[in-house]
C-alpha cells in the first residue's frame, strides 16, 4: 500500500512515506515522492535537496530544521538559508519533507 512505482519499479516506503532503502533514491524517485505531496520540484527545490544530500554524505544524519537552515546558509547564502524561504518551498516542514524527498532517513530530534 505504501509502495511507490517509478518506471515500473516498485519502491518500498515506510508508514510516513520515507524510503525504506535509501539506495532506491534517484531524481525520478524524488519527483514521484514530491507528487505524492502535491509538490512540483523546481530548481529552487532541487538546490536544497542537493544541499541536504551533501549534509547526509558528510554527517551521516538528517538535519533538524535549525541545522538545515545553518548548513543551507553556509552553502547557498543567507537569502536561501532562512526559515521563510525553506518553509515556503517545503510546505512549512522543511526538515521533514525535504529529507523525505532527498531520500534521507527521518530527521532525528525533529519533533
Amino acid at each position, binding site marked *: 500500500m505504501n509502495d511507490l512505482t517509478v518506471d515500473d519499479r516498485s519502491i518500498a516506503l515506510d508508514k510516513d512515506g520515507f524510503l525504506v532503502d535509501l539506495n532506491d533514491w534517484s531524481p525520478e524517485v524524488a519527483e514521484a515522492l514530491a507528487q505524492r505531496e502535491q509538490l512540483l520540484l523546481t530548481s529552487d527545490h532541487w538546490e536544497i535537496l542537493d544541499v541536504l544530500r551533501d*549534509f547526509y554524505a*558528510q*554527517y*551521516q*544524519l538528517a*538535519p*533538524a*530544521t*535549525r*541545522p538545515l537552515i*545553518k*548548513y543551507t546558509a553556509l552553502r547557498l547564502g543567507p537569502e536561501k538559508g532562512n526559515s521563510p524561504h525553506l518553509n515556503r518551498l517545503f510546505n512549512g516542514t522543511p526538515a521533514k519533507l525535504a529529507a523525505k524527498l532527498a531520500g534521507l532517513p527521518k530527521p*532525528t*530530534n*525533529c519533533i
Partner: protein
Amino acid sequence: MARSLLIISRQAPWKGPSAREALDIALAGGAFDLPLGMLFLDDGVFQLQAEQQPAVLEQKNLAANLQALPMFGVDELFVCAHSLAARGLDLCHLALPAEPLDAPALRALIARFDEVITL
C-alpha cells in the same frame, strides 16, 4: 534564560549506547537552541578519532555524526588533554576540532555550567 548543560561523554563508541546517547542529548538540545557544551573524557576521546571504520562492524559513523554538532549550534567542544595523552592521541588524530583542556581548565569548565551530566 535556559540553563546551560555540560555533557561529559566518557565511553568509547563501541561500548554500548552511552556515546550515542550523549550525542543524542547534544543534538536534541542544540536543535532547541539550548546552551550546551560537550566534553570528551577518558575513553570518550576515542569517539573523536579520525578514520574509524564502523561500517566494518555494521555500526553508524559516530565521528561523522559528531562533526554535525556545530551545525546544531553546539560549538563548545572540549577534550581532556590528559585522556588524550594517556591514549597516545594528539589533536591531529581527531576528526573534529575540540579544545584540549588541562585539569585546572576542566575544573573551571565544570564550575561554569549550570548542569552537568556524565555518561
